């Protein structure tokens, strides 16, 4: 697509429920990233997919968080047994890779855990 698409744009969930966030990167971009931004804070790295390589999961805050990328394209970030501290904007970005790692971000998913 023309840009990075994320869905849903907003999600309100009850504490303890599981949620799935979706990211559709720019066609042809081999790298895909998930970050989160808590209110008034900077961006925190979560996970990074590069082509067919094993993902860099070093930023996932707990084993309740997981992500997959199917067919080198769409990615899903899953948060199990959500907690209030999971409330944040979850941002996905993609980049071409190779000699150009310039990010294009999606509009984000605002997750609120009540």
């Amino acid at each position, binding site marked *: 697509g023309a840009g990075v698409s994320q869905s849903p744009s907003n999600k309100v969930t009850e504490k303890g429920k599981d949620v799935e966030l979706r990211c559709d990167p720019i066609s042809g971009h081999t790298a895909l990233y998930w970050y989160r931004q808590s209110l008034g804070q*900077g961006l925190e*790295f979560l996970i*990074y997919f590069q082509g067919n*390589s094993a993902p*860099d999961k070093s930023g996932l805050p707990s084993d309740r968080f997981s992500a997959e990328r199917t067919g080198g394209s769409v990615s899903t970030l899953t948060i199990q047994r959500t907690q209030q501290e999971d409330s944040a904007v979850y941002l996905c970005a993609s980049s071409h890779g190779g000699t150009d*790692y*310039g*990010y294009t*971000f999606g*509009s984000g998913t605002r997750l609120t855990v009540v």
Partner: protein
Amino acid sequence: GIQVEQSPPDLILQEGANSTLRCNFSDSVNNLQWFHQNPWGQLINLFYIPSGTKQNGRLSATTVATERYSLLYISSSQTTDSGVYFCAAGTGGTSYGKLTFGQGTILTVHP
């Protein structure tokens, strides 16, 4: 891991003024990017600039990798330049694209 520090934390300008935002990083970098987050939360990539100088309209950026800093220049500022400017750096290796973000500079441009 790498530390990224931005200054100043806040900046208030009158329309038409020029400004310089600074980003210091604690390690050698292979990846350095500047972003603008508008008041609606959308992050826009301004520059991918691991070294050297680039210009795009009223914006330009310079990274001096050997001295571990990058500068973003905004000339003839406009109210639409308001928002948060983030610098982000990566050290390469097996996670070449992974970035560590600074805390940002909040820019407010008054008409």
